[in-house]
């Protein structure tokens, strides 16, 4: 497993298309899920990348678990952080925040 620190994740995502308020980030766990095949460097293609680290996507498959899947380059990084999920949902205008349900 690639040892991605939470700081590393935040640095990589700073300034990316998805705005995540830095103050919202509490103590979460970040782990990287290795691709099912070995990653291929430079496989991201883009006509207009928004940052010098390439585009970054967030996916929240299950808000109740506070799990955020971060797609970057040829990696997926899993962050467990309920506060982060709550802020993302809030920013997305979700009528239901994870903190209210948790």
């Amino acid at each position, binding site marked *: 497993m690639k040892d991605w620190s939470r700081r590393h994740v935040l640095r990589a995502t700073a300034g990316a298309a998805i705005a995540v308020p830095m103050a919202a980030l509490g103590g979460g766990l970040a782990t990287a899920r290795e691709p*099912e095949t070995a990653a*291929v460097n430079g496989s991201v293609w*883009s*006509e*207009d990348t928004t940052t010098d680290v390439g585009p970054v996507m967030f996916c929240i498959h299950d808000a109740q678990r506070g799990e955020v899947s971060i797609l970057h380059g040829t990696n997926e990084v899993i962050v467990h952080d309920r506060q982060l999920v709550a802020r993302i949902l809030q920013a997305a205008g979700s009528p239901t925040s994870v903190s209210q349900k948790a």
Partner: protein
Amino acid sequence: MSSHREAPEISKDPVADNTDTYAFISPDKPDTVTIISNYIPLEDPAGGPNFFEFGDDVLYRINIDNNGDGKADVAYEFRFDTKIRNRETFLYNTGPITSLSDPNFNRPQTYTVTEVRGHRRRQLKRDVPTPPCNIGPRSTPNYANLANAAITSIGGGISVFAGQRLDGFYVDLGSVFDLAVLRPFQNLHLIPTPPTAGVNALRSFNVHTIAIQVPIGALTRNGKSPSDVFDPKSVIGVWASAYRQQGRFHDDKRSYSTGAFTQVSRLGNPLFNEVIVPMSRKDRWNRLEPSQDYQFSKYVAQPELARLLPVLYPGVFPNLAALKADRADLLAILLTGIPTGVIPGFQNFTGPTQADVLRLNVAVPPAATPNINGILGGDLAGFPNGRRVFDNVVTIELRAIAGQTYPLIDKTFVPDGAAGAIFDVIGGGNTPPPSVSYLPSFPYLDHPVSGYNSVPLDRSA
């Protein structure tokens, strides 16, 4: 079909849809193994102006397991890159294409080959050219020369080819999926129709081929080229797979993919996902590696088609209807390999791990006179010992499912006469249908049909 459009999700993603995988000892270079994986099912040769090509955003992979655990020990990855030479025209070619570097070829595609051994990755070659699609006598006037120029040696005794080919697989698709009609005895079907000859539904369709020819010793467990058929190290397992990145984004300003590559298609034995795995689990199967195939063994042990045949052909398959035991013959052929002692002079057993891979015993030399029915036809160099481009795999598998191979594990079982009378498409004999043809040397699959010369399918009947 072998695996053309075999699962709901991948049927909507043709460039990642693996249609056939082949693995065999190269007949003209018997110190090498040739592995072929095809993509993009049912290419209409006239399908321009945006003719067919590999996906730049797809990771294509050929996998070799040499220790029987259903996981890749050696893999070859292929990544493609497409350029547009003239951005001001809609044309695929702006004149005759006479060489791979011809400026008239407006959309050239190149690729990079990477070898993966465990955690070690090594780029073998980049900017390898692919030929254009076969357009017609004005656009691609000497197609064979163009295509042959794309056969590339990449060092280490390895050759590669990637590009359009005539689909060498043959199947009476319209018949099989019309409630399992087996021409020519459709008059015996529950819903009978008059007897007619079989039809190769893939005639005149092309595919996109990735082919690699590798020295045997580069693939075996101990790095040697074995000569003992009964040495476990003589057997390798082969499958192909395709991957897409997890995230895809599109808006009016940008389009990109990001995230880890995740498997969306795979193929070992022909027809496994197509006719063994239930529809509700086909997409799941495509995401897994062969080491996980124990999850699907119950569908091999009790195949749905074996239960359907006696129902659809009343009174034709009485012995198959009475066969209730698990199909140990099919479990061996498709999931573990055939152990020593079952077929004289042969084994391709890889151990207890159930995995859908093509098992090739590399110590079996190419046949001087091949039989397209492979081992069922007495030819130990043919399917299910790997798979050659001309092997009659639909007939072989239909006969096996109908019970013809069950005596391998139960000598008292007598197959129904109909099981041995199944001849998909070809109607018997040892010759593939006239609509397919092959090359005597790498990449063995023939040049594609051109768009100009292709004939639209007959709408009659």
